[in-house]
C-alpha cells in the first residue's frame, strides 16, 4: 500500500518538476537579431535611434539598481554607444551575444581597450554562456 502511494507521489513530483523546472536554454535573450530588427522597421531615423537608446538605457538602469553598472554610472550619453553597437552586432560571431555583454564590449571599444583584451573578454563570456546553455 505504502509503495503504491510512494509511486503515485513520485509520478506527481516528476510531472510538477517538468513544468516548473527552468533552464536558460529555454530563454531567448535580447541579442543581435532583435537589435538589427530595429533598422528593418519602417521608421524615421530619429525614432530608430530613440529605440536603440531606450534599450541601452533600460540595460544600464537595471544594472545600476542591481548593483553592477555596465558602463560608468555617470555616463548617460547613449548616442555614442549606438554606432558601436550597430557595428558590433552586424558581425556574425556577435549575433548571439546578449545585449548586456555587447554593451560592455561597446564600452571597452569606446574606451580604446586593446583589441586582444576585448576578444578575450568576448570569448570568455561566450564560453560561459555556452556552458549554461544560453548560446549554442
Amino acid at each position, binding site marked *: 500500500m505504502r509503495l503504491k502511494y510512494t*509511486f503515485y507521489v513520485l*509520478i506527481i513530483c516528476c510531472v510538477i518538476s*517538468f*513544468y516548473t523546472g527552468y533552464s*536558460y536554454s529555454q530563454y531567448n535573450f535580447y541579442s543581435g537579431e532583435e537589435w538589427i530588427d530595429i533598422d528593418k522597421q519602417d521608421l524615421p531615423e530619429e525614432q530608430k535611434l530613440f529605440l536603440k537608446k*531606450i534599450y541601452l538605457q*533600460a*540595460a544600464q538602469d537595471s544594472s545600476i539598481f542591481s548593483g553592477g553598472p555596465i558602463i560608468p554610472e555617470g555616463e548617460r550619453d547613449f548616442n555614442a554607444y549606438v554606432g558601436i553597437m550597430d557595428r558590433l552586432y552586424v558581425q556574425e560571431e556577435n549575433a548571439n551575444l546578449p545585449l548586456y555583454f555587447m554593451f560592455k564590449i561597446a564600452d571597452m571599444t569606446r574606451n580604446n581597450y586593446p583589441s586582444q583584451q576585448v576578444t578575450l573578454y568576448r570569448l570568455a563570456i561566450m564560453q560561459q554562456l555556452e556552458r549554461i546553455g544560453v548560446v549554442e
Partner: protein
Amino acid sequence: MIKFIKEILAKYKLGLFVNKHRSVLTIFILIAGILTVFFYAGKSTVTLSPEKSLPPKTVTGFIANEQVMLNGHSWADIEKLDLSLAEQRVVKARILRVILESSLFSGSPIIEPSEDIAEYVLSVDRLYSDKDNKDIPVFFILKIADLAKNNTPDFMINSYRDTVKEKLKEIGIIQ
C-alpha cells in the same frame, strides 16, 4: 538494455505492480501527455514578432523627452512612435526583457526569468496610468507588477512603492 529492465522489474516485483495498476498508470501517462501538448502549443502562440500583419501606421511628430532614468515619461514616449499598438507592445516587452536580463547578469534578477514577460506590459501600462507612479523607474514598476501578479497584499505593495520613492528622492533621482 531490455534484459536489464526485465531484471529490475522482476527483482522489485514492479511488473506485478504495473499489471495491477495499469488503468491508473495509463491515466497518469495520458494526463502528462495532454499537459505536454498544451504546454508546447501554448508556448508557440506567445511568441511576439513585429513582422506579423499589423494595422497601418500613422505618422506623428515625435519628440522624446530626455529622462535621467527610464520612467513613466519614457514609457509614454513609446506611444508617440510611428508604431501600431501591437508593435508598441513588442517594444515594451523587449524593454522589460532587457531590464530582467540586465538585472540577472548583474547578479540579482528583479523577477523570475520567464518567456511570459509580455504579460507584464499591460500591468506596467496600468501602473503608469497613475500619475503618482510616472517618475518611478521602469525597473521598480516591473517589480511592483510582479508583486501584484503574485497576489502580494496591497498594503505591502504600497509600502514597497513608498519606500522606493522615498529612497529615490533621497538620492535625487526623483523630486
